């Protein structure tokens, strides 16, 4: 089916294109972008009016937990794909802390197959760094990469053993693979369940000090120095970690990082009434850390926004705070939360959209996040002005544990295309 998207504001952060233009899609690829009088529009093309809308590359979320195989009661690849499509996300990288863990090529194959079946979003598996996430033996990175893994991570926990982390970074170089670290020194975080600060002391909740993240990032950067491996900090949340990454980048080291919307939008004050939808790992930090994160976004130290979409069933959240599972969903609020950064003057349109399209795509080495002739027609049409409020009950995925329930946001996905096929339509879905 051929599609003609008319008169939208087309923004492609990778090239810097930002103008009112029409987009023609033929056979699942972008055939042409330009003024209607300057491009060829097939007569049978279905016309979609995009007047007043932004036409952007389908979003790329490089940190998502799809929970399948093993935790299908929390989410499935199909459910997660529905949520992605509703959020305008056409490509997502899925973390390996499933059951079984993605440390074997057979599981990679299964995930790709399930994603294909659902057909609503592209799923790029991330392989485990260590077998079974045990932190001891490294996985078959080469074979896993061949099978389809785009990066490696033990997310959910850190690779604590310095020697193992060194080996992982070193070995990864043979494959140019990206090593993503969930930076948390578990000895320092202990039984903590929220940021260690004034609020945790008042609430009587054991805290996770910022140094649990900062010390591990600093150690890892030293290891990057001697190994040259490509290193990426997952869900960065502290001033110290951001400082360390900035230092490493200044020295020209291959170090990058991502931030989740809840870390730039919320603080530990959100835990005030022991709300378990404010419980995640790393935890929401105090205001001074949040300010450092915003500064780092605006300076380009943080180049990726990734949701750490972590679906959990109600039974695991409707319990005492310390016993609740960590994490919140995020695929469907990624866009409006990112757009808040433009409104608040932290990033301009191009740089902001880049954090959720071409930047993560480039880090993962995938062909995504670009809206250009010849590229797969993965697109999102959204109304940047439309105001709505987040309602957990209306989310499209299996689980509804959002930290933004009730939040008034601006920026709504109207249509999502995957290979030129509409996978989400706000009017009908």
């Amino acid at each position, binding site marked *: 089916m051929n599609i003609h998207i008319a008169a939208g504001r087309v923004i492609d952060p990778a090239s810097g294109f930002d103008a009112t233009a029409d987009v023609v899609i033929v056979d699942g690829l972008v055939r042409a972008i330009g003024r209607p009088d300057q491009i060829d529009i097939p007569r049978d093309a279905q016309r979609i009016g995009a007047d007043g809308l932004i036409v952007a590359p389908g979003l790329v979320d490089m940190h998502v937990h799809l929970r399948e195989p093993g935790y299908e009661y929390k989410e499935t690849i199909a459910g997660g794909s529905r949520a992605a499509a509703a959020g305008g996300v056409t490509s997502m990288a899925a973390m390996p802390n499933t059951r079984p863990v993605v440390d074997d090529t057979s599981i990679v194959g299964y995930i790709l197959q399930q994603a294909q079946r659902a057909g609503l979003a592209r799923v790029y598996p991330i392989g485990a760094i260590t077998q079974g996430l045990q932190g001891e033996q490294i996985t078959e990175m080469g074979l896993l990469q061949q099978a389809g893994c785009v990066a490696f991570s033990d997310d959910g926990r850190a690779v604590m053993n310095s020697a193992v982390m060194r080996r992982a970074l070193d070995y990864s170089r043979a494959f140019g693979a990206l090593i993503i670290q969930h930076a948390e020194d578990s000895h320092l975080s202990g039984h903590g369940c929220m940021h*260690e*600060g*004034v*609020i*945790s*002391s*008042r*609430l*009587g*909740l054991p*805290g996770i*000090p910022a140094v649990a993240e900062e010390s591990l990032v600093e150690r890892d950067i030293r290891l990057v120095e001697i190994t040259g491996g490509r290193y990426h900090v997952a869900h960065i949340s502290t001033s110290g970690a951001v400082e360390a990454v900035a230092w490493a980048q200044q020295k020209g080291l291959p170090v990058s990082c991502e931030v989740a919307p809840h870390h730039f939008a919320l603080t530990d004050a959100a835990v005030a*009434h*022991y709300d378990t939808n404010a419980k995640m790992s790393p935890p929401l930090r105090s205001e001074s850390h949040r300010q450092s994160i915003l500064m780092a976004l605006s300076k380009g130290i943080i180049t990726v926004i990734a949701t750490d979409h972590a679906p959990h069933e109600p*039974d695991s959240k*409707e*319990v*005492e*705070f*310390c*016993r609740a599972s960590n994490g919140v969903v995020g695929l469907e609020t990624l866009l409006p939360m990112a757009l808040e950064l433009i409104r608040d003057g932290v990033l301009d349109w191009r740089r902001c959209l880049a954090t959720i399209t071409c930047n993560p795509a480039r880090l993962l080495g995938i062909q995504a996040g670009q809206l250009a002739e010849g590229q797969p027609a993965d697109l999102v049409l959204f109304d940047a002005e439309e105001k709505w409020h987040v309602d957990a009950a209306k989310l499209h995925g299996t689980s509804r544990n959002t930290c933004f329930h009730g939040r008034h946001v601006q920026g709504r996905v109207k249509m999502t295309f995957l290979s030129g096929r509409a996978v989400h339509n706000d009017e009908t879905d």
Partner: protein
Amino acid sequence: MEGLTREEIRLLLDTALSLREVNRRDIKKVPTLRGKTVINLFFENSTRTRTSFELAGKRMSADVINISASSSSVSKGETLLDTVANLQAMNPDVVVMRHPESGAHALLARHIEAALVNAGDGRHEHPTQALLDLLTIEDHLPQMGRTSLDGLTVAICGDVLHSRVARSNAFALRTMGASVRLVGPPTLMPAHAEEALGARVYHSMAEGLADVDVVMVLRLQRERMSAAYVPSVREYFAFWGLNESRLACAAPHAIVMHPGPINRGVEIASDVADHRHRSVILDQVSNGLAVRMAVLYRLCLGSQGKGVQTLP
């Protein structure tokens, strides 16, 4: 106690004072809560507090049921909400709960209709303990040559980090105009304690106790040694144990308090705990009963819950 106003605390203390008189009568009963059902739901072992609440309910003529959830359904994996939903089916007027997790009452309050009393949640708060401590201090103001809690200096000593008694008292004392000191080893102080609890932190008992009017001692749990908070009981007692010479640093009229149960020779020397004039530990226990009667009274009368995690 965080969030309670001075007036609200005053009302509870005054109610406790008038109810205390009931406990001295020959027939220790008032019909105030007749026909009301009070369920004591204790997820942590506690003889002292539970008996206190039980007796408080009974003296007010309520039907009191004690459930020790540690042994029953919880060990079978039942969630807190399910346990309480089952109790809710019995239509209690008040649920008094003690739970090992901070914030358990906040969770529960969102899901039950009965009035909820916090008998201790994790290391967060133990409001009735703070109330009985305030009442006990007020009883001894005359011997301190004072007329109100305003301007009083209270030192809370020991494992503040893990103590709900310390938190509730810090909040309550500040609201009533007293100034609070927290004294203990650095590893047993909460992060940002001064800002979080509005108190001054000391690591030296001699400095921390200098001229204070009240010395409140907290229990040191044995587990703290294994988790690397303090090296040994011997060291703890040597530097932070309340003995006669440290007590001498406090004001001559200073009283010694302890929420109990005491660990003799660990946080407090035996002779200090048993001190006939300075130690008011047993007074605290009897005031506990009056204070709990007051809390139940106020709740069943329908005024804004005290000691209840009220949520917006």
